[in-house]
């Protein structure tokens, strides 16, 4: 390789100045993977962000919805999915208000959450406290883990 460069041969390695960067990026990606997925957060790209947890009997869906009133929320459940939709309204302020910052966003949202197992849609319970929505979704009887006695 050195000889080729010395002799002024065009070397394929130097065709693109980004090739080296690309290679480094690939290497970095491979390194990051080794950390056990901490850098790869599942991301649906739909508002609101949710945390789904499960216990033995139920699933728990949590979402941060500050400024959303319970009446503006619509939650629907089927045998294997839960849909959360609603609207966040930010009331209009004084007309002569001059804004320094406007980071909070108002608008509609709708999200479908596919449950990992069968649920009981009749017993779904939702509460909205301090801007945090908690939906308790009981698992269907058939989906609950059963202890099997070993004889």
């Amino acid at each position, binding site marked *: 390789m050195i000889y080729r460069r010395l002799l002024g041969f065009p070397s394929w390695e130097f065709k693109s100045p980004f090739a080296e960067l690309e290679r480094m990026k690939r290497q970095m990606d491979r390194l990051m993977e080794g950390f056990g997925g901490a850098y790869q*957060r*599942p*991301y*649906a*790209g*739909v*508002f*609101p*962000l*949710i*945390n*789904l*947890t*499960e*216990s*033995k009997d139920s*699933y*728990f869906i*949590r979402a*941060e*919805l*500050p*400024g*959303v*009133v319970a009446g503006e929320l619509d939650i629907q459940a089927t045998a294997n999915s839960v849909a959360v939709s609603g*609207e*966040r*309204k*930010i*009331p*209009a*302020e*004084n007309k*002569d*208000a*001059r*804004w*320094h*910052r*406007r*980071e*909070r*966003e*108002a*608008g*509609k*949202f*709708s999200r479908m959450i596919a449950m*990992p197992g069968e649920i009981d849609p009749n017993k779904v319970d939702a509460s*909205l406290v*301090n*801007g*945090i929505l*908690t939906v308790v979704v009981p698992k269907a009887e058939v989906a609950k883990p059963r202890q099997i006695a070993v004889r």
Partner: protein
Amino acid sequence: MADGKDITVKEKQELTTPAEQTTPGAVFTPQVDIFETEKEITLLADIPGVKSEKLNIDLRDNILTITGDIEAVGSVAEEGVLIEYDTGRFYRQFTLSEVIDQNKIDAKLGDGVLRLTLPKVEKATPRRIAIKAT
């Protein structure tokens, strides 16, 4: 404001402070709206999960500090299936250019939104601000 458009998803912004926190845990920057009228400055901050007794508002030397601690949700028996956001303390600091009447500061917290009214006037002495739950 509410013109029916969809909310775009934003990841919670984790704060990376130059000074390290003494208590471990993630710290997030709440989203705020700030507007000013002739009489007052109003600040609205989204701090879901913060209870009024865990919210701290401090104003001294023109620096307004908002700190909100949250309580852990759920029980130990729960296992994460899909975790899209983390929770932790909310923290944000602002330098106020106007002189604020410290005795008339009003803070309301409801549905995870803090509404802080800072009336403009002269004179500034440090004072802790009591929070009313709504």
